[in-house]
């Protein structure tokens, strides 16, 4: 079988007519991505899979969502936990556009401040961070002014 044919067959298995395929998600963060994007609360048809082989990540997950197209600031929220994610925008079974995620300038309400003495860990309030470095990611809390580093990120 030619590679081209294999690829086509693979795609057919769970091909979607219109929507978005999010690829290159670290498997361990699949469900966090689903939560952040609110996919657990929508009626769209969704298929996902984890633990696929990936040269870049070792191990990746994929999500396919029918009839859903993301705005930049919506999709960039997942950059914190899936910085290498790639989006294929599908129209009429064809890849109409490819996009990558970008770490946003500000992150609001998605993650906790790592500082156990920060007010945001005690009050029912929206956390707010300014991104002070992008690779590796560093986020400065607007309240306690401490920096949460990439490996300390905990999604709410």
């Amino acid at each position: 079988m030619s590679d081209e044919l294999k690829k086509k067959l693979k795609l057919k298995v769970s091909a979607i007519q219109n929507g978005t395929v999010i690829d290159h998600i670290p498997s361990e963060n699949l469900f966090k991505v689903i939560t952040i994007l609110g996919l657990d609360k929508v009626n769209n048809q969704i298929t996902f899979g984890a633990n696929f082989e990936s040269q870049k990540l070792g191990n990746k997950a994929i999500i396919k969502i029918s009839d859903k197209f993301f705005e930049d600031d919506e999709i960039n929220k997942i950059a914190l936990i899936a910085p290498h994610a790639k989006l294929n925008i599908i129209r009429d079974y064809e890849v109409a556009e490819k996009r990558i995620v970008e770490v946003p300038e500000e992150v609001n309400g998605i993650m906790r401040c790592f500082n156990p003495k920060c007010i945001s860990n005690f009050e029912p309030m929206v956390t707010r961070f300014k991104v002070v470095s992008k690779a590796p990611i560093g986020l400065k809390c607007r309240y306690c002014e401490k920096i949460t580093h990439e490996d300390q990120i905990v999604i709410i």
Partner: protein
Amino acid sequence: MNKKSLISITDFSKAEYLRIMELAADFEKNPNQKLLEGKVVASLFFEPSTRTRLSFETAINRMGGRIIGFSDAGSSSVSKGETLHDTIRMVSNYADLIVMRHPLEGSARYASEVSGVPVINAGDGANQHPTQTLLDMYSILKTQGTLDNRNIFMVGDLKYGRTVHSLLMAMSEFENPIFNFIAPEELQMPHEYKMFLKEKGIRYFEHKEFTSIISEADIVYMTRVQKERFADPIEYEKVKNVYILRNCMLNNTKDNMRILHPLPRVNEIHTDVDSNRKAYYFEQALNGVFTREAIIAHTLNLK
């Protein structure tokens, strides 16, 4: 919202620092200016800090204001589980200004977002204590005649000491400061502050002791080296006497040199220093009242 809170020292510009200094000098000449007549100031101390509270409340009283509030969270609704949000919303309906101290970091910033009136941060955990920094600056200006070209020695706990971090940020706005950091290995000035100075092209030097170099200092800012900060108690025992200032060390110091300390002191400044005219820490505390009057006047646009 057009209200002016003071949460972090970097909320103010250099021009505002100078304005506060000018107002503080004016309040020092005449402390009893009834600019708060008919106004109510909430003094909310979610953790006790008698020194800071008395300084603020003296400032408010001298300005003719009325005070409501509490001096520790035990006597307030906080102990009944009320959120900070609700406490601040309620109090900001009653008062024209809120002065607050709280053990949690970032609490003052959050309060300023929730409050309809200005908030002055009187300390939020280990994070910020901007009125201390402004009174330190006023003390430097008063004793040196200028905030420019000062050689500032910071001694002791430079890692956790919020007062030295804020003072560093503020003094870096002025001409040609030089910083000398004197701290044990475990308590050195954090990397981010050194990077900040590097980027601004400001000179700084790091030392393990200061007897040999103290003659260069214009300001010696002492802080306390606490035993609890050391993972290994033996390390503390090794360094505990290195960061103590004694009168005999002051012989060859500059005439204009002054010793500052945020107080309370434990043993890091020997009592034999107190009678030396270069010891300035008690006057420094008094400057706090004038500086806080200035800050209140500035945040409420009273002058």
